[in-house]
């Protein structure tokens, strides 16, 4: 069942760069077939003959099957001068859209899933960090996250303690603010925009806004694709396929605080599309 909450949110369905004049893209959003078309000067989204709301931001096309309850979230940093904006295409995954977001919020898997890149087996410890559900903004934030990384970014050389912040501005979007190797004091932004295809399948659109004038564009894209494809086999093998909102069958620890806060927030705002809502 698609609940109202899920229906009324904004979702990414295409990269802006795909919108060539005359193009017509077929997409599936929450089990419904929709079309994105460009008539030369304007882009439209339809479900059958019904016109859907549409906006183009952060290099992606966003639409909604319902009446969006609130505007699309802001990423002010993404609009700062001097950043390189990198849309990485989409990766289809047989997992709940919520699991894709949850995994993105997790650092403890770096040593085993992203071995030698984002983590190392001899530095697995997760230090204490702060998590907050911001009721006013209706967002989840994790701050003061630190983790040892052998190669934190394409432009990083040698291991560093990377500083992270995570922000969940919408149930199917996660934004990572990460130590910027090229510009001290600034944050690189790496986001995961998730398009729910069904409750157990999704298309993931990674997008980055980086201060990095040196790394070739293609290397940036492929670094991000490498990381996400390492996650993909994990995501397709978690049981149950739906994200449990009652962790009775699981054993979260302090390192899972962001994941648990994310689930708590989903539960509170009654976003159940892709979630397991029966008591485990």
């Amino acid at each position, binding site marked *: 069942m698609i609940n109202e909450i899920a229906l009324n949110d904004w979702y990414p369905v295409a990269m802006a760069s795909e919108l060539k004049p005359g193009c017509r893209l077929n997409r599936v959003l929450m089990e419904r077939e929709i079309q994105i078309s460009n008539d030369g000067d304007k882009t439209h989204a339809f479900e059958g003959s019904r016109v859907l709301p549409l906006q183009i931001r952060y290099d992606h096309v966003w639409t909604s099957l319902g009446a969006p309850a609130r505007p699309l979230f802001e990423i002010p940093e993404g609009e700062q001068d001097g950043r390189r904006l990198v849309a990485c295409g989409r990766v289809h995954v047989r997992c709940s859209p919520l699991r894709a977001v949850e995994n993105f919020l997790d650092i403890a898997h770096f040593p*085993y899933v992203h071995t030698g890149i984002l983590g190392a087996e001899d530095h697995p410890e997760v230090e204490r960090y702060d998590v907050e559900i911001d009721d006013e903004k209706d967002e989840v934030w994790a701050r003061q996250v630190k983790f040892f990384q052998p190669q934190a970014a394409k432009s990083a050389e040698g291991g560093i303690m990377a500083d992270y912040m995570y922000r969940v501005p919408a149930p199917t979007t996660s934004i990572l603010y990460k130590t910027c190797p090229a510009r001290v004091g600034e944050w690189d932004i790496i986001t995961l925009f998730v398009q729910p295809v069904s409750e157990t399948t999704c298309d993931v659109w990674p997008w980055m806004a980086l201060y990095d004038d040196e790394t070739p564009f293609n290397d940036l894209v492929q670094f991000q694709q490498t990381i996400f494809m390492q996650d993909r086999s994990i995501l397709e093998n978690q049981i*149950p396929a739906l994200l449990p909102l009652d962790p009775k069958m699981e*054993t979260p620890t302090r390192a899972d605080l962001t994941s648990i806060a994310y689930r708590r927030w989903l539960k509170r705002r009654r976003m159940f599309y892709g979630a397991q809502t029966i008591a485990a």
Partner: protein
Amino acid sequence: MTQQSPSPTAKPSSSWIPVALSAGFRPGSNIRVFADGNDIALWSSFSGKLSAWVNRCPHRGMRLSHGFVRGEMLACIYHGWHFAQDANCKYIPAHPELVPGEMICAQAHHAHEQDGLLWVSCAEEEPDAPARLPGFGVRSLLIDAPRPVLAGVLEVTHEAQGRWELTLADQPVILGVQDWPEGRTGVHLLTKEAVSAETKKMLSRELEAMRRTCEAIAPVSASASASVPSGPSSRSGDAA
């Protein structure tokens, strides 16, 4: 062998089910098998001890059959939680100093090695060992047809505890038979006596010929065949 009681989600079984051949299951192996419809991680420690666990990490639900063996432990590929032979978690890398309590554990079924076969039981109590029937492993094979089709095709002379005795290309052989999800069947071929490599190659082809016959009778649909092992995804199927 483990002492943990089986998963409450496990479907009950009365006895042992042959799930793999001993031959080739080297120390450090970790594979996914099915018994009584249960998804199971079957693994061997580097000293050769065998375990069969519910294929689900108690931390965040990752399939343990994707994990890796370290010494006498199985580690989950997702966050590296290490589980010892008794299925108890011994190490949580995110909190290296933490000594997990014994209730933080994987869920164990029973595992047993005998007569060239690896056996799993999902029964509450560990059943008595299967009757002795020594065999020499040749190969395993997955057939896209259900067990009754095999039974109809083969002339089984004797049947006991998941093993069929029959003659294949004039050789007396044993076939360990195991139900897979979606109407498929796993078979594990053994000879009653040690045979040459040439004989094994011949038997391997005979077994494939038998598979072709079975699948011609009852083909599993192509889509089912392709999607079988992607695992449970329904709400009800995941409920504990």
